[in-house]
């Protein structure tokens, strides 16, 4: 099993949300994903990175780490921050639940990651940070 991996470390700024999802999409070109699969993965990456910036770091500048590994037709994406963390991960993952309604957050971030990827694991520790692991198999629709 041959793996291919890339890592990105970038500032927690909203302008980098686009950079992160486009970089992942470019990295996955070799797997020949469909446009649909690519859109799903880009959305999931965007949600995870946006969460790290808005919630993890509360829009204070810091670093977001993104790891992307591919093997065979599988993609694993990890998004990590050293932010405030989540006390109740289960609650945070409920659709429409948001701690920032004043910013018009829809509360659909985790729901989208879950819907658009095959697997989603979230681990978090208050005061330490949050780690989101997402996996998807490319070509599963054929």
């Amino acid at each position, binding site marked *: 099993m041959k793996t291919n991996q890339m890592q990105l470390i970038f500032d927690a700024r*909203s*302008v980098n*949300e*686009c950079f992160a*999802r486009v970089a992942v999409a470019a990295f996955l070109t070799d797997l020949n994903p469909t446009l*649909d699969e690519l*859109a799903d993965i*880009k*959305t999931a990456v*965007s*949600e995870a990175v*946006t969460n790290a*910036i*808005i919630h993890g770091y509360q829009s204070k500048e810091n670093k977001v780490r993104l790891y992307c590994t591919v093997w065979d037709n599988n993609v694993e994406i990890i998004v990590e921050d050293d932010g405030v963390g989540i006390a109740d991960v289960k609650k945070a993952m409920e659709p429409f639940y948001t701690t920032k309604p004043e*910013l*018009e*957050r*829809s*509360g*659909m*971030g985790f*729901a*989208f990651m879950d*819907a658009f990827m095959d697997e989603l694991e979230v681990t978090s520790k208050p005061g330490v940070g949050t780690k989101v692991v997402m996996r998807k198999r490319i070509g599963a629709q054929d």
Partner: protein
Amino acid sequence: MQTKYEVQEPNLIVWVPQELDHHHADILRGEVELLLHIHRIRNLIFDFSETEFMDSSGIGVLIGRSRNLGYQNGIVYARNLNQHVEKIFKASGLDKIIYIISEETKQ
């Protein structure tokens, strides 16, 4: 103003940017709010013909405008959704809150 728009009171058409994520959602929200303050608008139409990407941040902007305009008996519409944007609308239930105008041909 970064946002492309057209005002014909009581109608406001806003062209949603190519990428509607958290970054662009904040810009769009501020500019649309400004337009809603300056003009008497009853119908706000978001045109997605130039939009290739949207995530959950975009949902917040649309629901927020729908709520605010709803207080003044206004209505928010969306048109020209591509396949990806339509999927986001359906997955979030946004298609039940925002009126989707479908007579125009999709790209």
